[in-house]
Structure formats: C-alpha cells, structure tokens
C-alpha cells in the first residue's frame, strides 16, 4: 500500500541555518510514528513541512498521494486531508468550544449549522468533553483545551493527524488525559505523526520511533528500540531525558 506520508531527502534552511539535512521517512496508512529528539534537532520543522506550514528548499514530500512540495499545490485541498494539533492549543479565544469546532465544517464544507453542531457533539464525546460544548476556551484547563483542539481537528475527518509537542505545556496529570485521547485515536486506526517528549507514550503507542539529531534521521525502529539504543547520541538523549 502507498505511504500516507513520505519524505525523501528533504532539505530545509532558515536563512543560513540548515535545519533539515536530507530527511527521509515514511508513514504507512494507520501507522503511528513518534518523532523524538532534542530541541533544535529539526523534528518540529519536519512536521511543519508535511502540511506546508514551512516550505522546503529541496527534496520531495508526499501526503495521501499529493505532492506537498509542488508550488502549484492546492493548499486547502491538502489541509482537508491532514489535521494538526499544536503545543499551544491555538483555540480561538473569542469563540465557544462548539464554535471552535464547527467553524471549519461550516466554512469549508458548508455543513448546515444543525449538522455541524451534531458533529461537534460527536467529536467532543470522543475526547470526553461533552459537557463543555458551550464553554469558552479560557474556562477550560490546559488539558481540556488541548482535547478540544484535537476534537476540532477530528471534526474535519482528516486522513492523517500531526501532533506537535501537544503535551509540552501541560503538567503530568493533564498530560495523561491528553495522551489517553491520542492512544484511543491510534487504536481507532488513525494515521498519526507525533513529535513528542513523552518517551513512555512513544514506546507504548507508537508503531515506530524516529530519533532525529542535528537535522537528520539518526536512528529508527519499533518502540522497543528505546530500551536498546544503537547510537551513542540516542543513548545520551535517553539518559538525559529520563
């Protein structure tokens, strides 16, 4: 089966600094891949290149059969296939939870309001926040906000979901409730690319782990590779991280 996401020899520079130095990897449909690595290793940048929040200098990126690096790409079509959840939640503070979730279905798909509301109820149930449908983001805890952000993304029924350090702003307790939602998603067959610092999550939930170091894919393997690192860099990273 064709890969849901594939990167081939991707190079990305910010000015003089090369942050991705020939990154290649694939994510199969239904697969959960965790990207780990130090700050500055290029893992978030790689993720942001996949849905073209960043443009690349050379290489190829494909998502669900669409060439992401094509300058003539229909961005909105790409983003119907891929959802993204951010470290800082990025909920719209002036809108209620329901409005946050229904905005894209109503505007992009022209879903009628009643139907959109039903979708909001359904995705909120999936993240366990049915009772918060009419709350404003500021009335929610960080963990709840992040779950709403996941629900908002789910409402557009993406084929692939990108998670960019979604628990890094949360305390351990709240981190747990967000990871639980992600685990349920993974078990439901969602294709997920997860940049994370949560080694336990990477080991338990991810089908495959990619360790990035200095802009390159340094080591890759199943979750169990974290128990048996091959390179000194991954060894050191794990020793400092745990």
């Amino acid at each position, binding site marked *: 089966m064709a890969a849901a996401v594939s990167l081939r020899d991707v190079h990305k520079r910010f000015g003089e600094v090369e942050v991705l130095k020939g990154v290649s990897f694939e994510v199969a449909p239904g697969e959960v891949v965790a990207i780990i690595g130090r700050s500055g290793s290029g893992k978030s940048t790689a993720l942001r290149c996949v849905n073209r929040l960043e443009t690349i200098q050379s290489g190829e990126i494909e998502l669900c059969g669409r060439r992401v690096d094509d300058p003539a790409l229909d961005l909105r079509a790409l983003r*119907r296939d891929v959802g993204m959840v951010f470290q800082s939640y990025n*909920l*719209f503070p002036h809108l209620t939870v329901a409005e946050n979730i229904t905005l894209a279905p109503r505007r992009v798909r022209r879903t009628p309001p009643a139907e959109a509301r039903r979708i909001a109820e359904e995705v909120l149930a999936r993240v366990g926040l049915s009772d918060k449908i009419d709350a404003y983001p500021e009335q929610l805890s960080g963990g709840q906000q992040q779950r709403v952000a996941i629900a908002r993304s789910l409402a557009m029924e993406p084929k692939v979901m990108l998670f960019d350090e979604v628990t890094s702003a949360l305390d351990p307790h709240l981190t747990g409730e967000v990871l639980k939602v992600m685990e349920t998603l993974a078990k439901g067959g969602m294709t997920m690319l997860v940049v994370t610092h949560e080694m336990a999550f990477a080991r338990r939930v991810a089908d495959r782990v990619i360790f990035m170091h200095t802009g390159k894919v340094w080591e890759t393997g199943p979750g169990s590779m974290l128990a048996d690192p091959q390179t000194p860099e991954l060894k050191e990273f794990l020793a400092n991280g745990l």
Partner: protein
Amino acid sequence: MGGFTLTHFLYLLQATGWTVVLTLLAFVLGCLAGFLVMLARTAQARWVRGLSGLYVDVVQGTPLLIVLFLIYFGLALFGFELPAIVAAALSLMIYCSAFLGEIWRGCVQSVPRTQTEASECLGLSRWQTLRDVVLPQAMRIATPPTVGFLVQVLKNTSLASVVGFVELTRASQVINNSLFQPFLVFGIAGLLYFALCYPLSRLSRALERKLNGGRRQPA
C-alpha cells in the same frame, strides 16, 4: 455692538451640529478607507505593502491643513470646485485612513501568528481566516485607540473653518467679528468642543480598562 445673546448661543449650537456631521462623515469614510489601507499594509505582496506604506508616510507627514488646501483650492484649478463640506470631508477621510489604517495594522498583527496557522490548518482560506479568526480578536484591541482617535478627528474639523465651512470654529469667528469678545465667544466654543470630546475620551479609557480586565487567552 451688543452683548452675547441667546440667538448667538443657538447659532453656536447649530454650528456644533455641523461639526458633528462633518466628524461622522469623515470618520465613516475614513474607517472604510482605513480598512482598505490596513488590508494593503498586511497584504502578502511586497509592492502592495510598500505602496500603502508610502501613502501612510506621506499623509502622516503632511499637515491636514495642507491636504485641505490642496483639495479645496488645488482641485479647483482642474475644474473640480468642491463645496467646502465635501472638500473638508475628503481631506479628513484621507487623514483618518492613514492613521486608522496604521492603528489597525498594529492590532491585526498583534493577534498571534499561531491563530492564523491553526485556522489555515483547518482549511480556511486567507479571507475566512481574516474575517472569522483575526478580525474579531483585532477589533477588541482596536476599539479603545479608534474611539480615542475620533477625538482627534472631531477637533481637527475646526480646520474646515478656513475654507469657509461654518462649523463651530467658523461660527465663533463670525460672532466674534461683530461682538469683539474673544474670551467669551471662543471660551464657549472651547467648552462645546470639550463637551463633545470628554465623553469620548472617557469611553476610550473605559473600553481599555474593560479590555485589560477581560477575556485573555492563557499562553
């Protein structure tokens, strides 16, 4: 030569009405033009940003009185003899558009970039993102300085007196020319301006307090 009578005062009140009319005209037109300036200043195309930036710099660096003279006397040379109120409204519109456009550009750009990213990741177009996500948040920030700027517009309508439009300042001059009681007449005019401006200033400050104490998105 007689004293200041009720008739004089009613004449000033009527002129105050014209000051308000001119202010509203200038402000409404200026808001429309200022919105376009804001869009141009935040456009993706560099030349659009540059050109609108030049417009803002030129207008902000030119006295409003000069703009008024150019439009009222200058355009007349080309056969456009505008009525004084039209020339004044146009000049003030240009003045407003440059300042409001720049105030609003700042407000739009103060909405975190991540809000735009989140919106575009959901598949919303640039225009939908602006309308549904950025502008509602920018408007809350923009309201206090915009109301505050309205005070400047109101006071600057007094410049329209030099092209013969009878608003509050011009009416005061007319009365003083016959009474020669400048302190009394211009004092009353000043109080009338103050009566209009002070509530606006207070409103602006109240709005600012409400904004600072109101909804904020936690980081």
